[in-house]
């Protein structure tokens, strides 16, 4: 059974069809890349899955449960965590608190126990801080734990977003251009981090323009143009698909 199943999904903005009758599956423990030229509707697909947009038609099933129309926080709770294309960290807050934001939905302390710092709340708080430090360490940012997120380098901010997403114990991690703005060295480290995430039995769905990265780590590629799927399959076969070459040559060929 696929972990995520998108079925005949359509999303319009006014008169514009951003996603057109799209269907695809994401199998458990795989790394799937969603690629396509700029404006193909990739991020819109992500936003529909994460609940930021509600598609007009079709269905989205995650782990056997329909998630269409649920609010984003609910979807995170069910196990889909995401990063944003334009980094959206809480830039004034220290890194550790950014990661704690991801942990929030796994914590239980209610308003009253927060006001009075009940013993259970204290215990949970300690455990969560520890867990979040581990996530920071996992992406290699432990020593930045109390630096404001906004003070980190661009590449580190992307890693911090990943740590924040990981803290919510996701089954599926959705990365929107994780290597955007990274230099070559950082990208290499990112590849290792993504592979390490997979080792934790977390499925990954990513949008990326860096084709070398995509080819290296993705087991399956989905190619999107004008909101429709024009090709899917293993990287090697997709690479030679004439429709894909046409789409990319037509617009953004240098990205190959």
């Amino acid at each position, binding site marked *: 059974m696929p972990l995520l199943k998108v079925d005949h999904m359509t999303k319009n903005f006014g008169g514009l069809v951003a996603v057109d009758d799209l269907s695809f599956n994401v199998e458990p423990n795989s790394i799937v890349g969603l690629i396509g030229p700029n404006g193909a509707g990739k991020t819109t697909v992500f936003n529909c899955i994460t609940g*930021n947009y509600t598609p007009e038609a079709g269905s989205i099933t995650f782990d056997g449960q329909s998630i269409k129309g649920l609010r984003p926080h609910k979807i995170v709770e069910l196990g889909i965590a995401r990063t944003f294309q*334009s980094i*959206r960290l809480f830039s004034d807050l220290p890194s550790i608190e950014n990661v704690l934001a991801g942990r929030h939905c796994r914590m239980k302390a209610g308003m009253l126990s927060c006001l009075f710092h009940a013993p259970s709340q204290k215990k949970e708080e300690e455990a969560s801080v520890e867990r979040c430090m581990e996530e920071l360490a996992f992406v290699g940012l432990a020593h930045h734990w109390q630096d404001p997120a906004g003070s980190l380098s661009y590449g580190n901010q992307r890693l911090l977003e990943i740590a924040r997403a990981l803290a919510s114990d996701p089954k599926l991690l959705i990365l929107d251009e994780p290597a955007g703005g990274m230099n070559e060295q950082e990208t290499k480290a990112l590849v290792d981090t993504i592979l390490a995430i997979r080792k934790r039995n977390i499925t990954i769905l990513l949008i990326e323009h860096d084709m070398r990265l995509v080819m290296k780590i993705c087991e399956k590629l989905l190619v999107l143009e004008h909101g429709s799927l024009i090709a899917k399959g293993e990287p090697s076969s997709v690479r030679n698909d004439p429709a894909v070459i046409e789409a990319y040559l037509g617009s953004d060929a240098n990205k190959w």
Partner: protein
Amino acid sequence: MEQFLQQLLNGIAVGGIYALVALGYTMVYGVLKLINFAHGDLFTIGAYLGLTLLVSAGIAGALPLFAAILLVFIMVALFVALIGFLLERTAYRPLRSAGRLSAVVSALGASIFFQNAIMLIYEPRVYVFPDFLRPTFTISLFGFTFPGIRLFIVGVSILLMLLLWAFIQKTRVGTAIQAVAIDQDAARLVGINVNKIISLVFLIGPGLGGIAGLMVGLYYGQIDFTMGWGYGLKAFIAAILGGIGNIPGAMLGGFLLGIIEALAAGYISMAWKDAIAFFVLIVILIVRPTGILGERTAEKL
């Protein structure tokens, strides 16, 4: 039915004034995202200054009435614009980088300051425009009789709205104002002097407020130093109702608020009139979260 039409006319007359005050409000908001709570008091200054110039300074006696009033309108607009300009320079500009709410608090302070300054300069009593200044012709249309000045006020506010709208849409400076409203940094990058544009906006907005104040004085004949607070609040509601930052929206919001109030007073309860108006506003905002003509931009992710 006749009562209904009469109430509709009453509402439009009141709404015209709300719209006029709301124009200046929305203009400042559109560019700076600042709720200028002092706008109502600039409006009051316009009314007092007009009275002083016309009566105490004797302009009304020195010139033919129509010319005198026109001249005083221009003088009031210029003077209140100057106050608005200075206000922005001293009380708002230092706070521009500090977030919008700091400037809102400063604006509240300015409102208290102006209100008390007027009270101290003049006396804390009601001032009355002498009768000879008030045009008292009446118009009969379709069986309704109403003071001509009502029509005049509605006409002037529509005219000013159109002028302002044309200025913003059709001129180079207007385009620059729009650019600053959308993104100050980007506007600066393309060579627009943002400070100058903001100063200009703070000349136009308060100038309009001053004109509105004098019109209220001439029409109703009675002014006092606290009147700006109420009109300012109503204008803010009107601007929000139409979609704040939007010039035709301010106009629409003003008229709509006037009509809602008149109908509420006429058909439901006079004492609850303002509460009903607020209630309608809240309901409209629940249905249309950015006002009637407000832009509904999808959050970019």
